[in-house]
């Protein structure tokens, strides 16, 4: 169970800037609050904080790109449906 909790903790600090800031401020306290084992808390105290910040920024860019791509796909689908419907209406006339 702790291994899963550890993955969830990593996911949270990768994605949530507030959680990351609190973790940077006091790594052990944040890790303990998440219910991690003593060994995991100790390991997290030795986190590469520079790498963590760079990783988080890189993931944020990827999420932003995915959002933009998703928006474009939805917009394209809507436009295609709109013009297909119009064309069908025009042909019926």
């Amino acid at each position, binding site marked *: 169970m702790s*291994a*899963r*909790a*550890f*993955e*969830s903790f*990593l*996911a*949270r600090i*990768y*994605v*949530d800037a507030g959680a990351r800031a609190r973790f940077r401020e006091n790594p052990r306290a944040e890790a303990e609050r998440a219910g991690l084992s003593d*060994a*995991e808390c100790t*390991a*997290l105290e*030795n*986190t*590469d904080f*520079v*790498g*963590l*910040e*760079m*990783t988080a920024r*890189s*993931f*944020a860019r*990827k*999420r932003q790109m*995915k959002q933009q791509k998703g928006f474009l796909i939805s917009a394209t*689908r809507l436009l295609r449906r709109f013009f297909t419907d119009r064309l069908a209406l025009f042909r019926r006339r």
Partner: protein
Amino acid sequence: MAEDAEGDVVVVEADPMNAFHDKVGLGWRADLAAEIFSHLDRIDLLEVIADDFFSAPRRKVRALKTLSSQVPVVLHGVGMGLASCAPVETKLLENMARLVEQVRPQFWSEHLAFVRSGGIEIGHLAAPPRTADTVNGAAQNLSRASRLIGSKPIMENIATLIDPPASTLSESAWISAILASADCDLLLDLHNVYANGLNHGYDPKKFLRQIPSARMGVIHIAGGEFISAPDGRQRLLDDHLHDVPDPVFELLEEAAAISPNPLTVILERDGAYPSMDCLLAQIEQARQALARGRARRIALQEVLV
């Protein structure tokens, strides 16, 4: 050199790459479609991102089926998160199973990464801690995936800007343990090896010697960019937006020299597309690196015999 039937000496034109049945292909991207179709004589296969088709309209899947009937296609997943202690979502496995059934790719592949946990979507491939727990979790997920989809995935090593906290195993030991536990082959991303080597201080060539060469079947090559860290140092980001750097071709030669299997090499490019000539030139460079590595392997075997 060898003798022909009449006893004359003839020069044997060795093509080391063909002797091993190696192939070089390209990642399929819609932006490159027209150019890819115009140059299929120089591209052995196409790698398609499977996740782009999981909720695609039927006509798009039909187009992919048509493509796979004309060119060898392989499917590459990016969203399962198989290297996790948490069980992979059945829905994701069913999506891949459906697409594999429809497209009949030569193989399908995924990443040694987790992408979500505790209800949080990370949005990209994250490295889990390299521990016995994640080896077991990955092996269980891979076993489920293989059963449900009907074939084993080829698993790719990922690039990471942070050495995952709480890791107790080296990257090569962790990858080797998962491949052995799940009896899966490796998709070796050489730019990821190069980037991780630079970012975390290990020798990429040594890394290649530490992973089981018999499991090496597929290779990715790509490019990236050096980004500045807040401490002023630089780290290499694997962004697939740049040309393949020379050290990656050198690693490809090394991989070809040690791998006993036919290798399928795929050039990945996700944006900032250069001209098709530039991509084809990189495919050609990959063929030359493979040929050099294979020639070394043949020479070594001859010495040993």
